[in-house]
């Protein structure tokens, strides 16, 4: 019962944030300056998704490393499970883990330093 009460309270807070997000999207849809296309990296390549209605100029070629895809479910690049362990894909995971580890290490060092200084500044009894 207590868990359900807490779940309801947590869900209420999350709902409030969701409503703020929806209101933001409704009131100021252009505030983030998006282009409408989607950009993501697959197997080390940057893939730029075109809106379904967009037509690239005849003969136009994307820059090296960029692949243009048409919007819609058929254009969704999908990795097979075996692809996850490809070095180029693993590198993306390592990069994320490195960023997290670096931030954690920095915060721990700063926190430990603060605590040490605070202890040292306390008058000894």
């Amino acid at each position, binding site marked *: 019962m207590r868990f359900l009460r*807490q779940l309801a309270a947590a869900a209420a807070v999350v709902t409030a*944030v969701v409503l703020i997000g929806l209101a933001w999207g409704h009131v100021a*849809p252009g505030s*983030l300056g998006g*282009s409408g296309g989607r950009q993501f990296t697959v197997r080390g390549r940057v893939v730029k998704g075109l809106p379904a209605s967009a037509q690239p100029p005849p003969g136009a070629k994307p820059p090296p490393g960029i692949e243009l895809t048409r919007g819609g479910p058929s254009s969704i690049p999908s990795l097979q499970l075996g692809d996850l362990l490809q070095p180029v894909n693993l590198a993306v995971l390592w990069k994320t883990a490195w960023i*997290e580890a670096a931030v954690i290490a920095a915060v721990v060092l700063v926190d430990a330093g603060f605590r040490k200084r605070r202890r040292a500044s306390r008058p000894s009894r």
Partner: protein
Amino acid sequence: MPIVSASVPARTRLDFWFDAVILVGYTVAYSYGFTGVVIHEWLGIALGIALLLHLTLHWDWVVRTTIRLLRPRGPDKLIWLVNLALLFFMTLCVLSGILISRVALPELGIRLPVEGPFWDPLHTLTAEVTLGLVPVHVALRWRWIAGVARRLVARRPLSRRPQ
């Protein structure tokens, strides 16, 4: 001889391992180039549910710390602020991810009429902010994490009951 974790209450073990799973899940889900769109979307939805449970499991802390904020030297003010920011950005990240879903929601038969240049950049922006906030959120609790990990590692053999 059976081995048990020394003096780690079940609830603490649950918190520790559940949070560890969320951290790993978040790291994998953020790495879009690693997962591809299908795993990214399903994992993101699972993370949304897990984060709601995480918030529920720590609701007592939220209430207690929010009340204490009024005190001039109340503890955990920084942690409270980081957690609030993380709640805000993570919720928006999951929300925008659901709204721009191209695989998971259509597979569930749900098609949201969401278009326009807002939700894609919001998803990117909030994901990048959470990548900064998640490790800070973890690191600000490093003493608790280190303490529990130490106790979990320091296993002791379960002594046999006298017959």
